[in-house]
């Protein structure tokens, strides 16, 4: 059986193609000039340049964090390009004007934009490297008063909103990678749902790193006003390259009173080859702030990246706010994942649920790191945490580092964790019923992850299950 493990672990990265498009890039290296270059390229207002420069200066004073349970060679921040945009860009009127090669790339990724326009009611804001190249369904959304555009566009057209909320959840100096992102972020998505509006369709963005040797620093800001609700989907893939690429994104969610934001991610960046060469360093800061009666729900399926460092968090600021975190993280080959969540309970009767499923295979190292903090004012707060790990083979590792900090007696906090493996007897049982080994494993792993998958929007749930199947089929030894 171990030969089938080798076979499947060494599977080709399906999305590892490079699109040959002329790129316009910034000079290699990082300095105040780079920050100014990016800001100028994007024709940003003065205040944003100042904000970036402030972040950059703070970043210079900070040191890279090394507490995550991951190992990687030192990153040369001066050896990367911080801006890459497809050349010959002119304002786009419709998708027809988009470079056909780009569209072809999306076809390979399985997101035919043109088709999606008619199908499923999913609006896609596709990020190709750093600049948003095509946004669909804008008209439908505009009718509902929803703003869904690239970050750059938002800066130009809705500067007040951006200025009000940018950095309000993740301050520019929050951590090393957030500061770096704040200084050099190139584009991203911006969503604004006005008061009382239920977003008429699910919003979706595909990120894709294409240019060699360039980091991707996108920034997402989602604001749901009082009583508004939105479901946002994010998918990521990256081409195959030998060197490691840094991806340091920041996502900020603001859910005002009674609002609800659901943020789903399927992350399938290139994970590096079987020797751990290449792959994406995915160092991401994601955080939401939930005001009174608001709800923020993070769902993530993390199957890619050579290193993942990511803790989508919720600050439960208002009374009765709800935070949720559902996660499936896979570490196969030489992948390392240190991921989890933070639930900071400030308001009364705030509730949070954490369901984390970690799967380790090959020589992967999977860590769950979470924090549940009940502050003194959080009367009647409630948390339930369940983190389960599954190990496939004995060269991988599963780690859990839950931090529970309770400062209020009227709260209830429960934490459970377990570790298990795919039993020979389970596989035998499935085989008896006519499933082959691969399907048996797929069934068992999908059962293990069921609680998370059912939180995903339909289109993603199907994709996630397939992705997981491909990642792990047959890898029982």
């Amino acid at each position, binding site marked *: 059986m171990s030969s089938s493990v080798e076979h499947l672990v060494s599977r080709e990265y399906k999305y590892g193609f490079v699109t040959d498009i002329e790129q316009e890039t910034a000079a290699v290296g990082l300095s105040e000039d780079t920050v100014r270059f990016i800001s100028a390229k994007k024709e940003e207002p003065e205040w944003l340049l100042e904000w970036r420069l402030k972040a950059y200066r703070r970043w210079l004073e900070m040191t890279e964090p090394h507490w995550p349970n991951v190992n990687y060679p030192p990153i040369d921040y001066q050896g990367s390009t911080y801006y890459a945009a497809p050349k010959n860009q002119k304002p786009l009127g419709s998708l027809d004007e988009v470079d056909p090669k780009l569209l072809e790339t999306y076809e390979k990724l399985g997101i035919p934009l043109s088709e999606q326009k008619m199908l499923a009611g999913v609006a896609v804001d596709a990020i190709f490297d750093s600049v948003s190249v095509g946004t669909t369904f804008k008209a439908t959304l505009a009718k509902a008063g929803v703003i869904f555009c690239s970050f750059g566009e938002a800066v130009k057209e809705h500067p007040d909103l951006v200025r009000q909320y940018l950095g309000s959840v993740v301050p520019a100096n929050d951590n090393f990678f957030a500061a770096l992102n704040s200084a050099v972020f190139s584009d991203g998505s911006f969503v604004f749902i006005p008061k009382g509006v239920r977003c008429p369709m699910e919003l979706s963005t595909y990120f894709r790193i294409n240019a060699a040797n360039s980091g991707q620093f996108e920034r997402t800001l989602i604001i749901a006003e009082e009583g508004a609700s939105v479901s946002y989907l994010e998918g990521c893939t990256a081409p195959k390259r030998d060197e490691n690429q840094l991806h340091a994104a920041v996502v900020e969610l603001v859910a005002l009173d009674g609002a609800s934001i659901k943020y789903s991610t399927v992350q399938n960046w290139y994970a590096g080859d079987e020797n751990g060469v290449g792959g994406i360093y995915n160092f991401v800061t994601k955080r939401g702030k939930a005001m009174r009666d608001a709800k923020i729900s993070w769902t993530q399926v993390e199957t890619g990246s050579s290193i993942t460092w990511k803790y989508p968090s919720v600050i439960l600021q208002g009374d009765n706010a709800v935070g949720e975190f559902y996660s499936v993280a896979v570490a196969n080959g030489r992948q390392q994942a240190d991921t989890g969540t933070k639930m900071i309970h400030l308001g009364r009767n705030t509730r949070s649920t954490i369901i984390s499923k970690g799967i380790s295979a090959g020589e992967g190292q999977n860590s769950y790191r979470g924090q549940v903090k009940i502050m003194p004012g959080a009367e009647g707060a409630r948390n339930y945490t369940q983190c389960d790990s599954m190990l496939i083979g*004995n060269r991988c590792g*599963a780690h*859990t580092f839950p931090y529970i900090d309770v400062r*209020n007696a009227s709260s209830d906090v429960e934490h459970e964790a377990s570790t298990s493996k795919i039993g020979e007897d389970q596989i035998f049982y499935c085989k008896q019923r006519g499933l082959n080994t691969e399907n048996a494993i797929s069934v068992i792993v999908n059962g293990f992850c069921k609680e998370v998958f059912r939180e995903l929007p339909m289109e993603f749930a199907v994709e996630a299950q397939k992705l997981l199947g491909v990642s792990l089929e047959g890898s029982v030894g």
Partner: protein
Amino acid sequence: MNATATMPFADLIATTQASEMTGWLADLREAGAARFAEEGIPTSRDEEWRFTPVGPLGKMTFRAPAVSAPLDRTALSPFAFGDGWPTVVLVDGRFVPELSRLDALPDGVVVTSLAEAIAAGEPAVEAHLGRTATADQTPFTALSAATFADGLFVQVSAGVVAPTPVQLISVATDAAAEAMLAPRLVVLVGANAELSLVESYVTLTEATYFTNTVAEVHLGANARLDHTRIMRESEAAWHIGFTQVDQEQDSHYREFALAMGGRLARHNVHTRHHGERVETLLYGLYLTRGEQVADTHSAIFHDQPNCNSWEVYKGVLADDSRAVFNGKVLVDRIAQKTDAKQTNRNLLLSDTARVDAKPQLEIFADDVRCTHGATIGKLNPQQRYYLKTRGIGGKKAEQLLTWAFAAEVMAEITQPAVRVGLEALVHQRLDELTS
């Protein structure tokens, strides 16, 4: 800057070293002092000490204990268990033969003060002291190596079942004020041997002092040790304890730890498995009030296949007190068929009490069963209501439920004499906490 002049505990370390002979012990002390000088007092930036505010220890000056006033045996009666159990009594860190009971030891059981065992050139001491719990484990094990004064040495020969438990009582008196007490234990249980050990840290003073203690335990193949650790230091005292247990194949280690004293009390219990089919059972209860901080760090290193571990730690917190719990279970890639379960439950009796729990699993083998659970909460209102409908209300119900919460781990004390004594003590403290 002259490091030794500003280093915490420098005077105490220098005094110990000046009085020391040569040889392995001098080397051990020197290595400990060097290591401590290197590490210093940990800060909250150190992950292992993140929630444990030991910083003030570095700013305080502790001296050697003053001369203790003579103690009567009856003064110790509230702390001693059993009748005629072999007992080593340390008063303010110093061995007091008149209060100890070391006559008529059973065959195959050696119980002496640690200093005596060292002076007698006992080879087993040299083989284990500072080698089972090494100076590089924590800054305080290093400090202990540099400064320990006396303690307990127990050796049970292969195949011997010790007929009665062995007892260490470390008692602080007024002479301990502003002083550091550094007892150390070496406990060796031979192959197929059995021992029950009661280790007590108690006080006759309300003074501020600092106990830094290290216990080194080695269990031979198929050996059994039943260990009860009782920490009832002064509520102004600092207590840092480290227990290292090395287990050979088929051995069985069981610990019950009660922590109810100290302004800040930290206990690390670490076990290593050197053979298959080892069992480790850890139980603990911490009761805190006022501004007390009780910290438990357990670490079970599953290095071998087919070993089991089981942990249950419970805490009851009142007032502005704090508890810290960190339970590590580390499963090596060869440790297949490991079965490890860890439970930590905390009951908060006040709105200002605080718990920092960090159960931690690190697993590198696939065919294992490892679980942990942690809960933090208050008394269940439904249970209160149930009792109320039966005519039991208010304080009475609270006391009953709190006792029931603690009773689960209290039931794990295997020595009847110890259990009865501690039950009364815990009952009384819980009644105080709930009133």
